[in-house]
Structures are given as structure tokens and as C-alpha cells.
């Protein structure tokens, strides 16, 4: 990228620092822990997030062609996945108890969650190793904002929201083919479950990203996570043994989109797995927070 494109990392940070809004609402130290303090804190962080959003919109709009091309590229990969399933189902009626349109629904859910994750977190988290390597992390640590918040939310990828919308289109089409009209409660819970799934992706990638505190070239490990997106869209009942245990209870990728898809299509066994999904999400976040704090304690800057 370099300076030609207006290095987004620098823009993001400077946009923050120069903006008057961030300094406006300061939290009085003695009120922390009370409800009042909580609301001040919340509005302050929401204020910061608004500024970060505005920055992202401006940045994305300065590369319009690229913006559109990325959307096209992601759509092609989505079409590819659907095509794969279509070819499989041209040779079989059901896979491990899932019918064709149930699997299409699942692929749609998986894409929806993955795109939400991309929109909100992906580039931020993968850039952590770059921040460490260049020493720019120091700069972020000095700001009077929670450092993890800033690292995780610096940029928003707007194109991914467009792709998430195409995924919604596919989900609706699959529901029509399945002849199902979900109730309002079902849709609301489904959306919440998708957010929980996004949160699991985020926690796991963040956990992997903290490895970059210890080795300079952790990029490969983080991108390795891309492979895990690939199994999130496969029906959970196809898996057995050790593999299933690992990807349910250690890296709960098989829960991320299977649980919301089951919930929406009213496939059996959804209620217990909803509980499991939430518990695993909290566990993953806890792990990533522990790794983050531990790494930060052992952080010696790269630049000085």
C-alpha cells in the first residue's frame, strides 16, 4: 500500500487523535463502577466508534473501484461454495441428514457470519502483527482508550456488509424453498446467535493474533484461520470422532454457523446447542483476553 494510497493505519490513528470528539467526554475516575459511570463510559466508547466509522467510510470511498471489485471477489467465492454444494446434491439426496436447501441455508448463515466478522474485525485483528513489527502499537497503547477496543475496532470494512446482505438473500431463498416462514422471535434469536458466532470468530482470531507478540511472522498463523471458515459451512453431523470433539469444544467452529442454521430451519437438537454456543463464546473470549493480557505484560517495544 505505502503512502500512495494514504496508509490506512496511520490515517486511522491520526483521525482518532485529531478528532475533537474523542476528548470531549472524559470519565471522572471516582464514578467508575456505578451505573452512571457505566453509561458515561458507554457513550464515550460509542462516540469513539462513530468517529472510527466515519473514517472508514471516507477511506473506502476514496478507492471506489477497489471497493466494488472486492465485493465482486467475495461474491464469487460465495457462489463457488453454493456451486460446490449444488454439485454434491446432484449426486445425492441428503448428506448426513441435511437436505439440499438446509445446506444452502447453512452455507448462507456461514457466509453471513463470516462477512460480519470481516466487516467489523478481520483487517483490524490481522494487522496486530504489523502494529507490533513496526512499533506503532506503542502509540495506540498510549492513548487514553482501552487498547484492545481500539485495535479491534479501528476500521470497518463496508463492502463486507454488502456481502452479508447477499448472504441474507440466499438464506431467505433457501427458507422459501424449504417452505418455512420463521416467527419474529426466531429471527431475532437467529440474529443474536449470528452475533455470538461472529464473536467466536473474533475471539479465536484475536487469540491467534497474540502469537505475534512472540514471533515476528505470525501472519501465516492468522491466515491459517481462513481454512477454518471452510469447515464452518459444513453440516455438523458429517463429522465424527476426534475431529468433531476438537472443532466443537476446543475451536468451536462447527457450532458457529450450524447452531444458528439449525435454529432458523427448526432442525432438531437446536436448544442444547444454543447453550453450548454461548458458553463456548464466553470461554473463547476469556481465553483471548487472558492471552492478550499475558502478552501485553511481556511486551517490549520493537522500535525502542
Amino acid at each position: 500500500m505505502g503512502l500512495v494510497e494514504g496508509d490506512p493505519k496511520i490515517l486511522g490513528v491520526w483521525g482518532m487523535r485529531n478528532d475533537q470528539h474523542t476528548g470531549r467526554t472524559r470519565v471522572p475516575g471516582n464514578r467508575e463502577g456505578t451505573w452512571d459511570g457505566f453509561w458515561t463510559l458507554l457513550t464515550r466508547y460509542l462516540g469513539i466508534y462513530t468517529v472510527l466509522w466515519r473514517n472508514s467510510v471516507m477511506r473506502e470511498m476514496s478507492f471506489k473501484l477497489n471497493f466494488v471489485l472486492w465485493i465482486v471477489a467475495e461474491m464469487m467465492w460465495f457462489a463457488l461454495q453454493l456451486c460446490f454444494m449444488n454439485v454434491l446434491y446432484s449426486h445425492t439426496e441428503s448428506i448426513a441428514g441435511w437436505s439440499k436447501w438446509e445446506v444452502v441455508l447453512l452455507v448462507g448463515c456461514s457466509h453471513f457470519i463470516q462477512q460480519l466478522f470481516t466487516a467489523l474485525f478481520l483487517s483490524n485483528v490481522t494487522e496486530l502483527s504489523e502494529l507490533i513489527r513496526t512499533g506503532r502499537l506503542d502509540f495506540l497503547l498510549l492513548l487514553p482508550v482501552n487498547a484492545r477496543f481500539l485495535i479491534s475496532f479501528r476500521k470497518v470494512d463496508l463492502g463486507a456488509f454488502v456481502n452479508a446482505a447477499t448472504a441474507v438473500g440466499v438464506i431467505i431463498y433457501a427458507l422459501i424453498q424449504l417452505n418455512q416462514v420463521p416467527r419474529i422471535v426466531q429471527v431475532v434469536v437467529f440474529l443474536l446467535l449470528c452475533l455470538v458466532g461472529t464473536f467466536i470468530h473474533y475471539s479465536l482470531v484475536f487469540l491467534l493474533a497474540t502469537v505475534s507478540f512472540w514471533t515476528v511472522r505470525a501472519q501465516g498463523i492468522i491466515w491459517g484461520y481462513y481454512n477454518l471458515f471452510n469447515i464452518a459451512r459444513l453440516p455438523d453431523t458429517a463429522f465424527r470422532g476426534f475431529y468433531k470433539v476438537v472443532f466443537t469444544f476446543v475451536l468451536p467452529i462447527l457450532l458457529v454457523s450450524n447452531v444458528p442454521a439449525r435454529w432458523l430451519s427448526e432442525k432438531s437438537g437446536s436448544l442444547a446447542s444454543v447453550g453450548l454456543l454461548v458458553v463456548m463464546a464466553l470461554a473463547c473470549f476469556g481465553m483471548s483476553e487472558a492471552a492478550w493480557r499475558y502478552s501485553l505484560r511481556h511486551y517490549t517495544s520493537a522500535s525502542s
Partner: protein
Amino acid sequence: MRKYLHVFEIGLQNTLVYRVNFLFRAAFGLIPLAGTLFLWEAIYSGKPAGASVAAYSLSQMMSYYLILTVVDTFTVVAEDDWQIAADIREGTISQFLLRPINYLGYRLSLYLAGRTIYSLVALIPAGLFIIYQREYLVGPASVELLLLTIPATLLAGILQFVMAYATALLAFWVLDVSTFIFIAFAVEYLASGHLFPLDILPAGIQQVLHYTPYPYLLYFPVGIYLGRFSWPQVWEGFAMQCLWVCIAFALARWVWSKGIRKYSAFGG
């Protein structure tokens, strides 16, 4: 020729640094592979015992993916296209214009060196995985076909490289080629047989793909190993593969000569 051998040696030493990265990459790559295998197992278990899908038995289908992994390890273009684009964008390509070395030859030497190291590293996890799945692995259809898999893999690698090279040269015209690389990769992923063997597709689509270079990037060598082709088809396949390599080389040279006229050496 000697200077390219030298580049090859330097490439070996440079990529050796990334061996741990390669190991992770290869190991992570086995996760979706195992996922696909589970999916196929589930499909076959839903059918009567001994049933086949488009003339593939369960072990043949599983072997398709296992052999594909090996061929892919030998041929995949990993970092080369990104590096080429970066060379152009950052102006480092200027030095090649001044030296008596051909950039395509230079890059090809680096690609071959990178593949050598990557294969040596990646075959450890891949080999262990294949041993673990050995009950499904079918042997080559015959010794002759096994031997023919080798040149087919080599040509597939060169074709993959030259196509990626030509795509990366778009960096002469656009600032960020990564989107083009991703779109090209998506097409290739499907049409080269990476997702599934191409002969399970409807006949019409197979016919269309037959006239594109894509089947010769992966499907052809794997298909030879599994004995999916008759002898006339094998020889025709080799002829087509060679033809596409020549076309890709000509195209790459043409794009290069156009691009170099457009090039204005930012920061160089």
C-alpha cells in the same frame, strides 16, 4: 543459464527461512481437506454399500483429494504473484530492466526454488495425513501412468506459475491487484478441479472446461494417476497442456512488453 541456477540457489536459501510458516500453512490446509473427506464419507454412507458417484468408488473419491493435495503441494503458486505485484508497485522492478536477466526467468527460478523447499516441508504433514487415511488410498492405475503423473505435474506447475505471473503483471495498470488475483483464484479453484473431480460435473460444463487451460492445472495430473483417461485422452491432454503453456508464455511476454512501456518507476 548459470545465472538462473544461481537465482535458484538464492531462492532456496531465502525460502528456507520460512520453513516453519510453510509447516503451519500445510498443516492448517489439512483441516478443510479433512472436512471435505468427512463430507464425502457421509454422502457415500447414505448410499447402498459399494455404490459409486459418477464412476468413483469411495476410496477413489478419497484418493482424488489425497493425490490432489500432493500435486497441489508441488505446484501451488504461494507468494510469487504478490511479490511480483509488489516489485512493480514499489519500483524494485527497475533493477531488472538494467541487468542482463530476464524477469520471467528470474521469477520462474524463484518459483521452482520456493516449490522445492515448500514441498519438502509440506510433505511431512501431508504424508502423515495420507498414512492416516491409507485405507482409502488407491495405488496408481499402472506404473506407466504413475511415471506420466510426474511430467504432467511439472507442466501443471509451470502453467499455474505463468498464469499467475501474467495476472500479477496487471500491477502495471492498477494500484492494487489483490482483487484480480482473488477473482482469478476463485475461477481456478473451481475449474481446475480443486473442489471436486471435474468429471462429476454435467457433461455440458465438462465440454466447455475442456477448451480452457484450467483442467490442466490440477485435474489432469490427478486424473492420470487415478486412471480416469484412456490412452488417446492422455496424449491429447499432454498436447493440450503443452499448448497452453506456450500460449501462457506468449501472453505473459506480451503483457510484459505492454506493461513495461506503461511503467514509470515510482520511487525508482
